[in-house]
């Protein structure tokens, strides 16, 4: 922070920080309270901000419910595969769009965007039939393929602008000083693109983690957590719902935390 800030500006700055923190953290805190605060606390009103009693019973009971652990695992698998596929397929496409002028580049971009023009229901139902035929139905990998389709347009467009922002001369310098095009990409372009790639990964993760419709249609037993919770929670007691909600929130937060190092990498300014 700038040490030259006047006291008034400093007050405003920290007030804003506090408001933003509350905006994000308060709901998560309340959900956590519902999950860990014991049965009585769930129905208590007005809510107290400190737990009257701390109990892991609900969470333990919830986790012990048949299918929860499996659904959680499925969600993690689907999200991980979606992240990997989106970045692995999206980044090369974005790179091609950014660096090469080729016939049909605009049409290609339009096609990529068009996948999002169809309602999910139109995509998911025929896919379910297709997946049954080829044996991908009711598996987290099938769900991940669907989620990749949803995340890919963003991955392509975000990485395109990302690569356009990296001067071509840096790559050419790498070629001149001994790199093959592939080496130049991994030694020069990729490190510079990491913040954007991290953002792309976060986006793909969140899309997959939160998506519920396609996951519900494409699975029966091997539900992802969202699909599972949607099916189960309406019939559960309130504190179990809080436990489920917390379980939905936490992995996203942890994932964002894990990649934030690359999200804000600016060499020589913040260091690494």
């Amino acid at each position: 922070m700038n040490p030259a800030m006047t006291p008034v500006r400093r007050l405003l700055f920290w007030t804003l920080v506090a408001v933003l923190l509350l905006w994000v953290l308060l709901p998560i805190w309340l959900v956590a309270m519902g999950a860990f605060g014991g049965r009585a606390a769930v129905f208590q009103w007005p809510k107290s901000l400190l737990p009257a009693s701390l109990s892991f019973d609900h969470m333990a009971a919830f986790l012990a419910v048949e299918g929860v652990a499996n659904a959680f695992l499925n969600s993690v698998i689907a999200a991980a595969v979606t992240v990997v596929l989106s970045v692995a397929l999206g980044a090369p496409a974005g790179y091609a769009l950014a660096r090469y002028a080729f016939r049909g580049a605009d049409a290609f971009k339009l096609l990529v965007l068009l996948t999002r023009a169809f309602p999910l229901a139109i995509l998911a139902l025929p896919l379910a039939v297709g997946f049954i035929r080829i044996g991908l139905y009711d598996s987290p990998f099938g769900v991940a393929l669907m989620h990749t389709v949803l995340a890919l347009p963003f991955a392509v467009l975000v990485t395109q602008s990302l690569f356009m922002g990296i001067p071509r001369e840096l790559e050419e310098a790498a070629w001149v000083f001994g790199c093959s095009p592939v080496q130049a990409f991994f030694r020069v372009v990729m490190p510079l693109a990491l913040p954007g790639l991290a953002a792309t990964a976060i986006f793909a993760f969140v899309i997959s983690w939160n998506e519920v419709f396609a996951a519900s249609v494409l699975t029966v037993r091997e539900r992802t957590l969202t699909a599972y919770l949607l099916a189960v929670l309406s019939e559960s007691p309130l504190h179990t719902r809080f436990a489920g909600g917390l379980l939905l929130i936490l992995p996203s937060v942890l994932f964002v935390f894990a990649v934030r190092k690359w999200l804000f990498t600016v060499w020589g300014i913040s260091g690494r």
Partner: protein
Amino acid sequence: MADILIDRVAKSFGAARALAEVSLQVADGEFVALLGPSGCGKTTLLRIVAGLETASGGRVVIGGRDVGALPPRARGIAMVFQNYAVFPHMTVADNIGFGLRMQKRPVEEVARQVGRAAEMLRISHLLDRWPARLSGGQRQRVAVARALAVQPAVLLMDEPLSNLDALLRLEMRADLKAVLREAGTTTLYVTHDQTEAMGLADRIAVMHGGVIEQIGAPGAIYARPATRFVGGFLGSPPMNFLLCSASGGRAAIGDFALAAPQDGAVMLGLRAEDAVPVGAAEGIPFDVRVVEPMGAHLLLTGAVGDQPLRAIAPPDAAIAPGARIGLRPDPARLSWFDPETGRRLEAA
């Protein structure tokens, strides 16, 4: 060390012709500047030599080896880019050592070469810094050090000083000349700045419209430009051109007559410093419109008849705007051009 042979290299972008069969030879250890206005094809030619662009025809031979089919990394070259292209995610030391590390040289050798190159460019104290924390001039030095560290056979430079401010450019120019003389590297240097080309190069190739108009030592092409374009592009203020008609071997400008190489319409090329201001009664009649004191001299802008002309006078000369003076040209330092073709006319 190596020589460069550019043999009838041509380049077209679709229907647009960027280079028309350009040939140029650079001797081992020589510094040749490609000089021309933007869009003249000089950068395209440099990029073809570097292998960053493919020629539509002709060949490039570096050190006796046809490099046409080789990627940039296999050509034994190093390059300095206009925007420096210093890798922002590496420290200065890592930047300078990048080429050597790619060649898998031993760690001690990399460190030694990096130290040497940094010392040459006087940036030893910056080795641990990140490029984001460097000024433009410092980044430029890093880019040059990175190129010299690999001890290339050929050094290619694409307008390396154009992003620096004037004072820094002057300082860097002198440093560059000293460093390159010491290294003895064959250098091809692209610039649109004629003072840079004059000051640095052993020879200058002046390019215009995708062709080389003239190749020669700076002094030679300055004194004897082969075309009107070359005369106008080199020198500050640019060469003056006066259209006049000659008969009987004498060209008349007002009441003043000069020996001309051919009869009919001819164009006189006269540099500002090649004519001495004298009284209104003698020399070429010159109507002064503006007088600009430049310190070392006065810059006079005006007209001969209805043709614009710039001349210089000693700083203490008493010349007022609106005055008519005479200009006595030095007959040995005049250039004559064919007004149709723009080519130089030699005295018969």
